[in-house]
């Protein structure tokens, strides 16, 4: 565990305009580390979708990106409402987002499927009324 590099972010749940700031910063950090562009793109898209989800569904939370020698692990932790039916949430096109969120270009029901698509492994640990923790791994 000692040889990992950690980037930690507080995701502000109040402000849709600033959503994605952490992902932009992670993209910059990974570029500076000289990682392959395809890896950087996958990490930043998965994290960006996660960040947007935290803002529109869970009133923000914490995001951590841990860079190891052989993998990158993204952890998104929120105290939101939890996901009632994970299988349904994973279905492309299914969304509980409001019309307001849709009018902003999101809420197409592609967030979680996209996060899975761009990562090698995704674990969802959720409890209704308590929160959700999503752990995504991208192998290097």
């Amino acid at each position, binding site marked *: 565990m000692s040889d990992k590099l950690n980037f930690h972010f507080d995701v502000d749940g109040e402000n*849709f*305009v*600033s*959503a*994605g700031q952490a*992902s*932009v910063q992670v*993209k910059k950090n990974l570029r500076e580390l000289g990682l392959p*562009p395809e890896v950087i*793109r996958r990490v*930043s*898209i998965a994290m*960006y*979708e996660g960040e*947007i989800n935290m803002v529109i569904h869970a009133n923000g939370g914490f995001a951590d990106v841990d860079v190891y020698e052989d993998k990158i692990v993204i952890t998104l932790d929120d105290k939101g409402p939890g996901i009632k039916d994970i299988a349904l949430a994973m279905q*492309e096109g299914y969304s509980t987002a409001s019309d307001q969120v849709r009018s*902003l*270009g*999101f*809420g*197409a*029901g*592609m*967030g979680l*499927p*996209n996060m899975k*698509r761009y990562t090698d492994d995704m674990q969802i640990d959720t409890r209704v009324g308590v929160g959700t923790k999503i752990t995504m791994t991208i192998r290097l």
Partner: protein
Amino acid sequence: MKIREIKELLDAEVVCGEDALETDVHSACGSDMMSDVLAYVKDQAVLLTGLVNSQVIRTAAMMDMVCVVFVRSKVPTPEMIELAEESSIALLASGKRMYEACGTLYYHGLGGAKHE
């Protein structure tokens, strides 16, 4: 196609990124739904959209795009311009509607995604 040609074909105004006009781009996509851009776009360098908020610029940045064209006379906010400048993304604004703008670029040789 160079970004300058996109500007000319769409009769667009350069909002920022004047120095990127000679950049060559090889494909584009058009969407107002950023979730779909993140899901389906692969290597497109240009995004045409009628959506105006900061997430448009962040989505383009995530996808390594170099140019965003706002259609239907939409005008990006100062905050969006600042974000675009930070990510070296050129912003153009055109009065054309989405269908016409995409069609014009496609007709002149700017393709879409390569289907897998």
